[in-house]
């Protein structure tokens, strides 16, 4: 399984033709305490870059953009009762949604861990 990152601080884990998406630990640290997560509708068709989820913190509401195009295949229902999972476990248990990829070639434009770490070190 390989993981990619966006400049907007989403991560995506690829397993076959399905990607699991969340926000990075760096992003949750910047947002502060997360109080609500709105996940996308199951089965909805999304294009790369669409704002399809909202993470609301004590400071501000932030859109989450889909890193790839495809169809929403699953959403993390645990976040309804425990939005703070995105704070405590951003890059594993705090995942937001899964997407069946329609164009795996889009992954080529994303960053790997080393490039992303260098990117946030420069922010």
């Amino acid at each position, binding site marked *: 399984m390989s993981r990619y990152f966006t400049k*907007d*601080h*989403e991560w995506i884990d690829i397993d076959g033709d399905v990607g699991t998406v969340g*926000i990075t630990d760096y*992003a949750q640290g*910047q*947002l*502060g*305490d997360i*109080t*609500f997560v*709105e996940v996308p509708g199951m089965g909805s068709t999304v294009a790369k870059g669409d*704002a399809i989820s*909202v*993470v*609301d913190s*004590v*400071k*501000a*509401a*932030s*859109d*989450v*953009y889909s890193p790839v195009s495809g169809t929403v295949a699953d959403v993390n229902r645990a976040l309804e009762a425990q*939005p703070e999972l995105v*704070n405590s476990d951003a890059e594993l248990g705090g995942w937001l949604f899964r997407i069946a990829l329609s164009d795996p070639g889009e992954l080529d434009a994303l960053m790997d861990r080393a490039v992303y770490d260098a990117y946030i070190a420069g922010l």
Partner: protein
Amino acid sequence: MSDIPVDDDLDDAAEPLILPLDSWHRARGARMVEFAGYQMPVQYADGIIAEHQWTREHAGLFDVSHMGQLYLSGEDMDSAVEALLPIDLATLNPGQVRYSLLLDENGGILDDLMISRWESGLYLVVNGATKWDDIGHLREHLPDEITLNHLDETALLALQGPMAFAALEPLVSGDMPLSALTFMRAAAFKLGGVDAWISRSGYTGEDGFEISLPGEDAARIADLLCAHPEVKPVGLGARDSLRLEAGLPLYGHDLSPETSPVEAGLTFAINKRRRAEGGFPGAGRIVGELADGTDRKMVGVALEGRMSAREGAEVFAGAQAVGTVTSGGFSPSLNHPIAMAYVNAESAAPGTVLELDNRGRRLAARVVPMPFVPHRYFR
């Protein structure tokens, strides 16, 4: 994702100013942001919700040294100040603290402030973002015989929460015991060997104290207070969520020159004698509004669900736009979002069903009485 808050506002032309506790905050893991022209701690490592709850259950230490501390003195001071504020200074005795409003000629709110009588003068605490304008306004409108001292080398700490008294009491000595200070009273004490003007007041809805002391001693006194196991430093983020739960307005958001005290629900700040006699800025409008009511009113709003509505969100009653949110956010104590909004008078009654627009989504809400969380002052 969008809108990740950036710690430093690089676009701002003026370099932020540094307050006496700057390095003290950084050494305790504070995340510093620019606020009112100063570098200020928005939160420490525990985060806003933990700091909020700590203050409600224990005691939080807030650095509010960005606020303006002013001292007025001189002959015929009371009548000169009464020409600018709707306060009755004849009933403000030494050691009493009162909330008041700086008004423009239309009765709009230039600032809200705390005023107390201290020795032969008046001690004012005004908002940090407005203090320079306030000083200009006071200098312009007060006669030359009145001296205005800006106590800009004086720090201001707030110790707030149910354990605030227990933490502060062993450290102070004075002409009266600290227990003699009830809510909205103030006196001079020695605190850790330093002269401090201590007021039993605050901006959280909890019992607590506001402590004015020399800036050069602030770090040592903050250490002394935080040595108590019930005291932790708390940042501006939790200060905002605490004051919102307490239904206390924030100048520049809930109050402005476009709002009158009557619309804002601050009629208690228009003292009785002044209502009868007038003689303060905007008295005609304000006395009229006290008699006839206003077209719009500040209300508290409780939201269903967990998504917050924030400043600027439009308020609807059915299809009709009836107002605007001026402050909003998640209430850690109530575990749901709350907001303050100005709405048309016909939509202001508690229980009125509303919808708040959040970026195209309609959030279900209703009008509720304020404070959202009961005050626990020591009276």
